[in-house]
Each structure stands twice: as C-alpha cells, then as structure tokens.
C-alpha cells in the first residue's frame, strides 16, 4: 500500500507508473486527485512520450471527454502513487445543469489551462523564431 493502510480510504489507488486513462480511449468519467500526483503525457510517435503536465491533490483531469465523445487526448499515469476518485459523466452533467457555480469552477480550471497552453505556445514560437524555423 502506498498510503496509510490503517485508515480507510476513498477512491482508487494507482501504483507508481500505472496508467489511469489512456490516450485514444473513449471514456465517460473525469477524475479528481485525492492524494498524490499524476503525470500527463502524449504519445507523439517518438520513442519517449511527450511530457505535458504534473497534477496534484484537488486537481482534476479527463474532463474534456465529458463535453465531447472524442477519444482521450493524453495518457495520465500515477507519479509515485496516487489516489483518485472518478466522477461519472451522467451525474456530473446533471449537476452542472442544476448548479451553475459548479460549471463555473470547471470552466475556470479549463480557462487556467488554456492560459497556460497559450503561454507555452507563445514561448515555443519565440524559440522557433530564434532558431529561424518560423
């Protein structure tokens, strides 16, 4: 056990390196991290998967598939052991309809991620320009 085995624990535990969701899969839930960390990676066809982000306690992932039926865009795996709770798509969509402030929280989190992505794109473009590629 990675965490205190004497105490009851909620959610599901994943050992270090274990895959929680896999790129390309169709799924109907998102996950909230109760304890530990996860690594988000994308397989770009190279030998090593492309590292995208590390998420920790209170963060959620897999939310994009709730709003579309498209496959998962990244693989998420446990980093040193993690405990997560899944949130079902059907329930969540019902609660979002009842509870605008919950929608707001999820949207704010997604906005934060878009901001981060934009700043990373800008940074990459600058580097490409410096190297005369763009």
């Amino acid at each position, binding site marked *: 056990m990675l965490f*205190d085995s004497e*105490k*009851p*624990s*909620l*959610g*599901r535990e994943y050992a270090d390196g274990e895959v929680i969701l896999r790129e390309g899969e169709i799924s109907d839930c*998102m996950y*909230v991290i*109760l304890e530990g960390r996860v690594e988000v990676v994308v397989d770009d066809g190279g030998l090593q998967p492309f590292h995208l982000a590390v998420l920790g*306690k*209170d963060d*959620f992932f897999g939310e994009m598939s709730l709003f579309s039926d498209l496959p998962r865009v990244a693989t998420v795996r446990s980093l040193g052991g993690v405990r997560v*709770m*899944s*949130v*079902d798509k059907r*329930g*969540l969509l019902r*609660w979002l309809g*009842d*509870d*605008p*402030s*919950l929608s*707001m*929280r*999820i949207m704010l989190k997604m906005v934060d991620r878009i901001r981060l992505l934009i700043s990373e794109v800008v940074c990459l473009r600058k580097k490409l320009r410096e190297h005369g590629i763009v």
Partner: protein
Amino acid sequence: MELTSGARVAVIGGGPAGALSAYFLVDLARQTGIELQVDLFEPREFTLTGPAGCNMCGGVISESLMQKMAAEGIILPKELLLDAIDSYVLHTDSGAEAIRPIHDEMRIASIFRGAGPLGAESQHPLPWSSFDHYLLGMATGVGVRHIPRRVRRLDRDPEGRPRVHLQAARGEESADPELPFGVYDLLIGCVGLNGSGVRLFEELGFGYRPPKTDRAWVAELYMGAEEVHRRLGHAMHIFLLNVPGMKFAALTPKGHYATFIILGEGVNEEVARRVCHSPRIRELFPEGWETPVRPCHCQPRINIGPPHRPFADRVVLVGDCATSRLYKDGIGAAYRMAKVCAYTAVTRGISAEAFRQGYWPACEEMDQDNALGHLLFSMDGLLRHFAPFRRAMMAVIRAEQVRPADPRRLSSALWDTFTGSASYRLIFRRALHPVVLFRLLVATLRELLPGRRSH
C-alpha cells in the same frame, strides 16, 4: 432587495445546511465582488462526544455527494473517515445478496457528525474528527464568524430587517433573559427539526410551517473494529424485513462501531427491540453478543413531507427544517439546497419573490421526487408480504451480479435507493424497465411453480 458589500447575514444553526449555506454564500458573493459579513449561531460543541456534540444522523456521505464535493474541490480529510463503503448487502426474509457497484472504487464514506458516541472519549486522543466541526471550519475559513450562543428570539426592526436576540448566558442574567444582538439584511434558518429553532421561525409570522415528520431510531453499537470488519466488511447492510413498524433498517460499519438505523412509521423502543431480535439481524452480531441496554442512541425527527412557505422577504429556511430527501442522503440534500439558496441570494436577491423564483422550484422538485419515494416504499411494503416476489427479486439480483456484461438494472435501482446516488424518478425508471419487469415476472412464476423455489 439585494445583497451588497457590507451586508450582514445571520445563519441560525451550524449543521451541514448552516455551515454550507454560510460557506457558499461568502464564496459566491466574493466571486461577484461582494464582501458579506456572515454570523453563524451554533451553541453546540461538535468536538464533544455523545448528544452534546451530535446532530443525530446515520452519518453516511452518499456516492453522489462525495463526487459532487470532489468536483467542487472539497476533499474530505482522512481523519473524518470511519470507513469507506464498497458494497451493499440486501437482507430480506428470503436471504441476502451483495450488490456491488460496476466501478472498482470506494465512493461512500461513513462519518461521525459529532466527536462520536458517548463513552468514546475514553480513547484519547480520538482517532477521528467530527464531520460537522470540519464543515464549520470550512465556513470560518472563508471569514464566517462563529457565535457559539443560543438564539432566543427573532423579530424584525421597523424597516423589516430581521433582528436576532440571544439567550442570556450565565453571568449576564438580568431582568431580561434575552440579549439583543444585531440587525441583519438576511436571515437563513438551518435549525433542523430536533430543537426549538423551528419555533423561532414560526413565531416570525410569515406563514412558515415545518414539514411533516416521523421518527428514526439511531444507535451506535460498539463491537470492536475486528468484529465489525469480520461481520460487516466494508459493506452497508440493508434490511427489508417483515417486522411490524419498520420500513427498512441499516447497519453501517464505522471503525469500532456499527451504526444501526431503523426507519418506519412511529419507530419507538419497542420496534427497535423487535428489529434487534430479528434472526436476520442477530446473525450479523457477534455470537452471544447482546445489544447494550443503553447504547448511545437517539430518536431524531426526520423530514417526510414538504414545508409550507419556507421563505419571506429577507428570510429563508434550508435543510431538514425545509426540504430534504426522503429516507436518504440528508447531508447531500442540505448541500444542494444550501447552494441553491446561496446562488439565489447572490444572483436574484433576498426578497420573497426572489426566493420563490430561485429557491422554491428546487424545493418543489425534491418534494415531488420524495412523493415518488413514498410510492416506492408503499409498493415495497405491499410486496414484502408476498414471499414469492421477494424470493424472485433476490434471484434476479443474484443473476445480475454474476453476469459481467449485464447492465444490472434492478441492482442499480436498489443501489441508488440506498446510497442516495440518484433521484427516485431515475430509480423508478430503472426498476420499471421492461427487461427488469420481464425477469421479475419470470422469476416470480418460477417461484410459484411447485418444487421450483430458488435458493
């Protein structure tokens, strides 16, 4: 009539409905640039064991509430958890069947509302924490002021704003037993059904009448952690038995304790004694174990019918004293209604009309769903006496549990009934699915055929 920065709000009662109403109100107001001054009046000390610190409840956090809180970013700390529940075992006079969720995950928690049963204080320090104390901490963490005093009277000032008068404390006695405390822009009543708080709001004279109530019987039975897990596992045990006066009973593992809840019409000590002596229940108790003569127990009032007009200008009631879910997920109902109330107050205003348009529809929706719940339990009460149907139901559940690809409609309907994961409307839709009805019909006919009883 709207909340603006500097507006004062009084929340009477610090159980889940009160603490969450205060928390969500401050949080939502802040998101719209409004800073409120919120006072929460709760004299009870949740860090005490026994009735002094307990808000009388079975203490189970439903699967849907757990997921909702996780999505909201509210992660319950481990010290609150007494146990994590992974399955339900349904016991009837015709046998027992385990109902497991399709997912392989612990999403239901058992907790103590206060610091635990009377006598638990001998374990020092206590290995768990109070759920209500944690929620109160969430509220004070966002700036809510906790006033640990009892409210004696409510009235309105000449401009119609609610006024709070406190009960004079020892050393403050004078000719007047009450102490004027303050005038507020909004008064939120989260007084439950088990104290004198309901009367305070009835006396305000705006037409509020509390919901119809019944009694539950809740006891904390000490068996020791080893016995609790050997006997109950991580499962909540539900009993649908032919015991007069009982609708259903539940035994929930909680560390060294098992919480025993009996629901029915007019449950009293005599019904509780009959239920405790039922063979189906006794077989889960350790051999030779006798129910303590005086376990830490209570007979709380529970909400079984809609309230009348739980709002007025600048006043609204939330939680058990207004609308809750029938026989299940009371904490989840308080969470939902606290949020709707806060959202209404921040976005629509605090007039009676604002609450009628924003808050009351959510109450009505839950009350209408509860009416379906009443129907469901009435049907169960009728069918309980028809043993072949009961055996057929158990046979269908058994068959669903062993088929990996089966959608497990009946098991899901029962799972949702007892976990509080879904509305009674959805449960009805699942239970009345043609496939379920067909399977039940076939299984019942099989039971009626001579010599074809399932085991």
